[in-house]
C-alpha cells in the first residue's frame, strides 16, 4: 500500500470561493501536502473578513485568490497553487475544475452553492463535490455533521443561516472548513485503498 503522502502528492483539488470555508479548507489541504490546489474568488479582503478567513491584517485590499495563493505557498511551497480572480459561472466551473479529483464548494450565498452543485451533479456527475451548509453562530458543535447523497457530501449543521445576530465566526466556520478538508482526504485515500 502506498504511503498516504504519495497519494495526496499527485492529487488536485478545486476550491470554489476563498472566504471562510475556502481559505481555511485550502490551508489544511496545503499542510497535508495535496499536490495541486485550484482556487477561485472574485472578492477583495476587507477587515471584517479577518474574524474567520485565513488572511492577515496587512493583506486588506488584496484580491482573495492571490493573497490565499501567497499564504498557501508560505505554509507549504511544494503545493502548486493555481489562483483565479473570477466570479465563477457554470461554464467556468466546467473549465477550471475539469482535471480536479474533488471539488470543494466554499461559497457564501445559497444561490451560488446551488449553482455549483447543480452544475457538477449534472455535467460532471462522476466528480465528488464537498459542500459547506450551516455554520453560523457559536456553540452546538455536535450538530455539525456530514451527509452523503451519492457523490455529494454536505458538511455543517444544515440549519443555521448567517444573520446579524448569528454571524459567521472563526470557530464554527473553521470546523466546517476542516470537515470539508477531512472529507476530501477520506475520498482521495479511500479511492486508492
Amino acid at each position: 500500500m502506498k504511503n498516504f503522502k504519495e497519494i495526496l502528492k499527485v492529487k488536485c483539488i478545486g476550491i470554489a470561493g476563498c472566504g471562510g470555508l475556502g481559505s481555511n479548507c485550502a490551508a489544511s489541504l496545503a499542510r497535508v501536502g495535496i499536490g495541486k490546489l485550484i482556487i477561485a474568488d472574485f472578492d477583495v479582503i476587507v477587515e471584517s473578513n479577518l474574524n474567520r478567513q485565513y488572511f492577515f491584517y496587512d493583506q486588506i485590499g488584496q484580491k482573495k485568490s492571490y493573497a490565499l495563493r501567497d499564504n498557501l505557498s508560505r505554509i507549504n511551497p511544494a503545493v502548486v497553487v493555481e489562483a483565479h480572480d473570477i466570479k465563477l459561472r457554470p461554464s467556468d466551473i466546467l473549465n477550471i475544475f475539469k482535471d480536479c479529483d474533488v471539488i470543494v464548494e466554499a461559497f457564501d450565498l445559497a444561490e451560488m452553492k446551488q449553482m455549483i452543485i447543480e452544475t457538477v451533479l449534472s455535467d460532471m456527475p462522476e466528480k465528488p463535490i464537498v459542500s459547506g451548509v450551516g455554520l453560523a453562530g457559536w456553540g452546538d458543535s455536535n450538530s455539525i455533521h456530514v451527509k452523503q447523497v451519492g457523490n455529494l457530501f454536505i458538511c455543517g449543521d444544515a440549519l443555521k443561516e448567517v444573520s446579524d445576530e448569528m454571524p459567521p465566526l472563526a470557530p464554527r466556520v473553521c470546523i466546517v472548513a476542516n470537515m470539508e478538508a477531512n472529507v476530501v482526504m477520506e475520498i482521495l485515500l479511500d479511492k486508492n485503498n
Partner: protein
Amino acid sequence: MHSERGEGTMKIILNNNPDELSFTEMTVQELLTVKKFSFRMLIIKINDKLVKRDDYDTSVIHDGDKVDVIHLISGG
C-alpha cells in the same frame, strides 16, 4: 405537465425514510408543497439523478422512487 391523481397511494423513500403519499404520482413541486419544504434553495435528486431547479414542475415522482431533498443555506 399533468400528473395523474387517481385513486390510491404511493410509497417513496424521502431522505432515507419510507413515506406514503395519497397520490399515485406527483411532480417535484407538488411534493415540496405537500411536505411544506420552505427553504428557497434546494438540491433535489430522484433515484440519485439530479432534478434541475427549472424542472421541478415537470419532473414526476412515481411509486417506489428514492427522493432526496437537500436544502442549502447561506454562510461561508
